[in-house]
Each structure stands twice: as C-alpha cells, then as structure tokens.
C-alpha cells in the first residue's frame, strides 16, 4: 500500500471520530450542573435578563436543535462567541494555540534532552548504580504531581533566588527574553513528566536492540562500542520512541491544565478550565474539539512516521 493511500484512508476515518467526539462533548457538557443562563445573569438573577440570555444563545431550544446549530456553525469555522467576555471563540483559539504549541515544543525538548540520554545510559549500564539512579529519577518524574513540582520550583527560583519570574507569559516578539524565562519552569515541570516515560521506553527498546544479532555482529566486527550503541542500536530503538513522542506531544498540545494554571500561561489548558468554571459552553466545546482533532492528527502523524521508519510496515498490513 502506498503512503498516500494510507494517509487518505486514515484521514477519512478521522471524520466519524471527530463527529463522535463532538456529540460526546456536547452531551457531556449538558451534565454539568448549573444553568449557564443563570450563571451569566449575575447576582441579581433578573428573570428578564435570564430569558434574554437563553434566547440569545439558543439555550431555550431542544438539545438536538442546539447541537445542529452549533455543528453547522463549526463547519463554517464559526465557534461562536465566548459567553463571558464576548470575544469570538475562533479568535481565542488562534491566540492560545501558539502559546500552547510553544510550551509543548519546549517541554518536548526538555523531555528529549533528559529522557533519551538517560534511557541509553541506563540500558548500556544495566544493573549498575547509574541505571538504578536513572530509573529512580524517571519514576519520580512520572509520579510527582505537576502542581506540586510547579509550586516548589516557583518558590525556589522565583521567590527564594529571584532568578526567574513566578508566572506570566510574554510573546516572543514583544519580549523574547521574558518569553524564554517564563516558559523555562513550566517546560521543566511538563518535560520531566514526559522524560520519565521517554527514559523507560528508550531503556527497554535499547535493551532489546542491544541483544539483537546485528549488534552482536557489529561488536564481533570490533566496531567501536560508541558507534554500536548510537548507530546500530539507538537508530532501531528509536522507532517506538518516535511514536511515543508524537503521542506525548499530542497530549501536551491538548492543554497542560494544571501547569498553565499555576504558571498563569494563557494557553489551551487555562482557556479550558476557565471555560468550565464560567459555564462558557462555546469555549469548552471548541477547545475540546480542537484538542481532540490535534490529538488524532498527531496520532496519525505517529503512524505515518512509523510507516516511514519501518520498512516492514509497507509490505502488506
């Protein structure tokens, strides 16, 4: 099967997935307690104001009709307007997405820089104190809650040492230095979590390839050990790691809810949480839908990479 056909088939399969997601988001949200119109009407609960809000946002129409109106608009690229601050949701998405992408990229960099070498080292030095330490650190990275690590890093680097800002975000073009300094701590928080997974996967994949016949052959040909590890073993071990990386990246893109909240980074996660608290239906629906689409697309990308990297996949399947 050609790569083009494969991608096309996967893209077509994307449509029912996203449709299902949209139905899920829409119906799950109806289960949220609290009437958005009442939440919007303020402390006074003026009945006329409540009724006007219901009518304006079609909240007085049957659910199926509400869904149809929403889906129709979404297909035209119109996600509606935030119930809370009246800003078009597409505008909100467009301004938040680059922030979250930047944070995801930085976190991935941290994860790769920490996770890959640690995995390779602990696989080549299996059973040594180094392997043990790397495993311990990776497990801690996986298990430490993001909000706790975040607060600790803020207290150390911002409050105690005063080296980095405690929170906030500036775009790279308005203040490149501040952009980097504000992203550093959250990238470490998110990156260490992913690095743990990376390290564990790299380690087991490396251990498998290091046992393979061609590695033994390479060693028998007295290829230097550094080349054996990096060129023969690592390259083959990378295939599952690429897949993992793409999936983890997708997860990061769907919004690092707690981390964005703690570091006050105006990305997808913060948009989503604030949306839920304010019963901002339009925002929540759009964020979840776009995140789901991104996630599915990145999964597709992972499969494609796998397809490219692994010649055996191209045969039948």
């Amino acid at each position, binding site marked *: 099967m050609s790569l083009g056909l494969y991608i096309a088939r996967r893209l077509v399969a994307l449509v029912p997935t996203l449709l299902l997601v949209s139905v899920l988001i829409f119906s799950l949200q109806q289960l949220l307690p*609290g009437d958005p119109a009442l939440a919007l009407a303020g402390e006074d609960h003026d009945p006329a104001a409540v009724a*006007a809000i219901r009518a304006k946002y079609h909240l007085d129409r049957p659910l199926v009709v509400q869904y149809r109106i929403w889906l129709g608009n979404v297909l035209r690229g119109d996600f509606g307007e935030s119930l809370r601050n009246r800003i078009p949701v597409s505008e909100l998405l467009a301004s938040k997405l680059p922030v979250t992408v930047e944070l995801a990229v930085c976190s991935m960099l941290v994860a790769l820089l920490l996770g890959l070498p640690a995995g390779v080292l602990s696989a080549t030095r299996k059973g040594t104190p180094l392997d043990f330490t790397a495993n311990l650190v990776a497990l801690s990275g996986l298990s430490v809650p993001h909000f706790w690590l975040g607060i600790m890093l*803020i207290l150390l680097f911002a*409050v105690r040492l005063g080296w980095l800002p405690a*929170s*906030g975000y500036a775009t790279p073009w308005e203040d*490149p230095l501040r952009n980097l300094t504000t992203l550093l701590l959250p990238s470490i928080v998110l990156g260490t979590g992913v690095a743990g997974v990376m390290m564990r996967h790299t380690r087991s994949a490396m251990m498998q390839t290091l046992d393979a016949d061609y590695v033994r052959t390479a060693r028998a040909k007295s290829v230097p050990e550094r080349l054996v590890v990096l060129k023969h073993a690592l390259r083959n071990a990378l295939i599952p790691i690429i897949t993992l990386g793409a999936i983890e990246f997708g997860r990061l893109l769907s919004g690092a809810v707690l981390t964005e909240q703690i570091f*006050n980074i*105006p990305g997808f996660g913060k948009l989503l949480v604030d949306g839920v608290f304010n019963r901002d239906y339009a925002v929540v629906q759009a964020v979840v839908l776009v995140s789901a689409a991104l996630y599915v697309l990145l999964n597709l990308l992972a499969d494609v990479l796998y397809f490219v990297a692994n010649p055996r996949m191209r045969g039948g399947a």
Partner: protein
Amino acid sequence: MSWTRSLLALVAVIVLAADPVSAQSILRIGLNDDPDALDPTISRAYTGRLVFAALCDKLFDVTPDLKIVPQLATSYEWGPNQRSVVLKLRPGVKFHDGEPFNAEAVRFNIERHLATPGSFRKSEIGEVKSVDVINDLSVRLNLSEPLVPLLAALTDRAGMMVSPKAAKELGDRFGTRPVCAGPYKFVERVAQGKIVVERFADYWDKANIQIERIEFLPITDSTARLASLRSGDLHMIERVSPSDLAQIRADARLKVVGIAELGYQMIPLNVNNGPRGKVLGGDPRIRQAIDLAIDRETIVKTIFGNEYIAGNQFVSPTSPYYNSKFPVRKRDVAKARQLLREAGVPNLAFTVIVPPERDRQEAALVLQAMLAEAGITMTIQSQENVTMLQAGRRGDFEAYFTFWSGRPDPDGNIYTFNICNGGQNDSHYCNASLDALLIKARQTADPAERKKLYDQTTEILLRDLPRLILWHRRVFTGFNAKVQGFTPYPDGIIRFRGLKLS
C-alpha cells in the same frame, strides 16, 4: 569581527525589544480571575470592577466610610418628593477618544444601560424613566418612584460613562476596546493573560495620577498569586485569603491591609416558599432557637482566625447603619431548647444546602455540631453553587448557605431580600410593616432619618429571622512595600488616585 558585531547588534535588538517601557512605572496587579466583558453595561463579574476603576470614571464615588462624593458629576439636588434628581457635571472632561463629556453623554449612557439587551445595569437603575438635558453641564433624571439609593448605584458600574461615539462604532463589541473617561486608557487585553492600561494624558485629575502603566494579571491559583507577590512579579493582589495572611505579614517587603466588606455570609431559611417552607416557616420561635444555638464569635475565631467579623445584621458592625442596640447575641443553648419546646418541636431536624467551597463547608460542620447541642439535627447537603441558587429560587430548600457581595447603600443589602415578592426573597417572607419601612427608607434623603427607619427594620428582622446573617469577611489587599498611598475601601476596589510606586 563581523560576527562579534552582528552578535552585539542582535543582543542590542533583543534588549531594546525586551522592555520598551522600562523607564516608566508599571504597576502589576494580580486578579483572582479573568474579568468578563469590559463594558460597564453588560459587565457582571466582580473582578471587572477593579479594571474599571482605572478605565472608567463614574458620576459619583464613595469614600471609605461610604459617603457619596463627586467624580464626573460635581453635585446633585433632589427634586420634589425625591422623584427626580438634577446632576451638575464636571466641565472640561474628555473621553479617551477626545470626545467631550457632557449632558448628552450622560443621557446616552443612562439610556444605553436601560436599553441594551442583556444589560446588568437595568435592574440597578430601572426606576429612571427619562433623562432631560437641561444644558451642556446639567441633566435631570426622572424617576418612576422616589429612589434615594439611586445615587449609590451611580457610584458603581451604572454611573460609569463611556464615549458615545465609541459605543456606537463598536456596538456589542465595545467591551473588547473600552473607551471611557477614567485616569487610564485601554491598551490591550490578552484573554486569561493580562489587561494593560496606560495613563490618559488629558485626564481631568491627572495631577493625582502618578503610575504610568498598569497591568492586570488574572492568576486563579492563590498559591501562585502569593508566590508572584513574594517574588516581586506582582505589586498588588486582591481579596487575599485569610490563610495566606501569615506569609505576607512575615515578609518585611510586603504589606497587607483589610477592611470590613459591604456584604455578608448568610443562610436564608424557607419561611413560606412552597411545601418545604413548613419545617422552618410558621412559628418564628423555631428560627430564633436556631439563631440562639449558634456561636458566631467561635465560628469566626476557629475557622477564620478572627480575621473576619461576626455579624447578625444586613450591614457590618462597622457600618453607620448598624443598629448597635442589637449586637451579636451570646449563645444560649438552654433558651434555644426552651423555645423549641414552646414551639412544639423539641427534636427539630432540617437540611441545609452548602456549595463545595471551603469556608462555608467548614462553617456548616461547626454549625451542625453547635445545633446538635440544642437538640437540632441539621443535615448538610452539598450542591454546586448555581444549582443551589436555582433550588433556592424554586423553593426546593429548607435552608441554604450563600452570601451577598454587598452594596454601598443599605437598601441594596436588604430590599430585594426582604420585601414581599422581592427578586431575591427566596424565603418568601412577607411582612407589611417591614415593607412600609423599606419603601419609606428609599424615599428619605436625610441619612439620620434613614438610619432610624433601618434601625426599626433590624428589630423586626431579628425577631422574624427569615435569614441568618453570620459573618462579614474582611477584604484584604496585599502589596509590595514599594506601593505607597494605598487606602482600602470596603468594596475592595483599588483607587489609583494618589497611588505611587517608589
């Protein structure tokens, strides 16, 4: 050589681009949440008011002790029977777009508040029937009924004046680029990120505005907010939680001040709203017994480390309208038991709805234990806030635990909660003699006369007890010692006049 030079140039560019306003003074304020639309007519969230204090001047303002003072209006004069009021306006005031502020602008703004669909100001000034422009600098507001508290409404969002030209141009998207006549003009807003304003060169009182630029940063997590204050990223934070006070007080670089809030925490009791009103409605001795079994001082001391103020009336003990003849009563369990026996329900049991919020959950547990000692079984039912309020409206409750943010005029703290068929009278309490006093107080301009009327309402309400008022919070503002000239106001809103950054 050329490499070094390019590198130096690059660094220079980055440094220059990095901080274009470093020479100016920038005040960074942490907000507890992201405000909603920055349009005074449709704004609803409390946090928006902190931003409006920089952007939009109001016709009047209140002093820290709640006296009404001029802002964009210089004086007011009530017409016959308080059915109209004439406002004299400040000359030479300009909106941020250079448009003049005058009587026409006032008329436009009042009519906009009344006519905009989804206006949250309509319920505050709905009694204004028409606005007459007398001359360029005076207007008359004609009322459908006498309403002295109207002036207090004009000290908040209903009194904020926006540029008519900008409002017409931007329509219902005005809130995304507000144009008012306040000390600062709008620069930009990054939703969930920040709101930036800068000093308005043509402000009518510019001599008193020192800080050049203000950034409002919504940080929902209180630990993160406090950390940002301690690290110096933020200069001020609003509504500091009592549990964070110790850390601020321990830090020599920081300060915190508190002032009694305008509102109160309360438990409305269902007196006559549907069949569930049978449990606590009827005999007022039942409600008096509950009241007597509660030790408010202990609640304030144990849960809030004495940072809040025990209360029993619709205004806090620090308010000039507090009736000092009826201070917070001492707990009297024996008397409570006796009242219940007399009312024929020695084993009273009822359910209170409490939202999943720490302060009220903890207080409910303490209340439960206190009432148990008087033989009263109080069941706690947790319910999400908006759902609880809906249940309150429907009458599907015996008691629920809520709060009122408070208004500067006492009328705003009592009228709609207690008048028969009042918009917020979920208890469905109805008392003709109380109604007469409440209506008379709305028509009386003399504060001393009004005080007498409200003193009488307090007496009636403490006997009938349709709501248990429990405590008043203090609004705490935390700030860096570099911030000077800060005066706390009971509404918790930061005033920028006289504020300096050293």
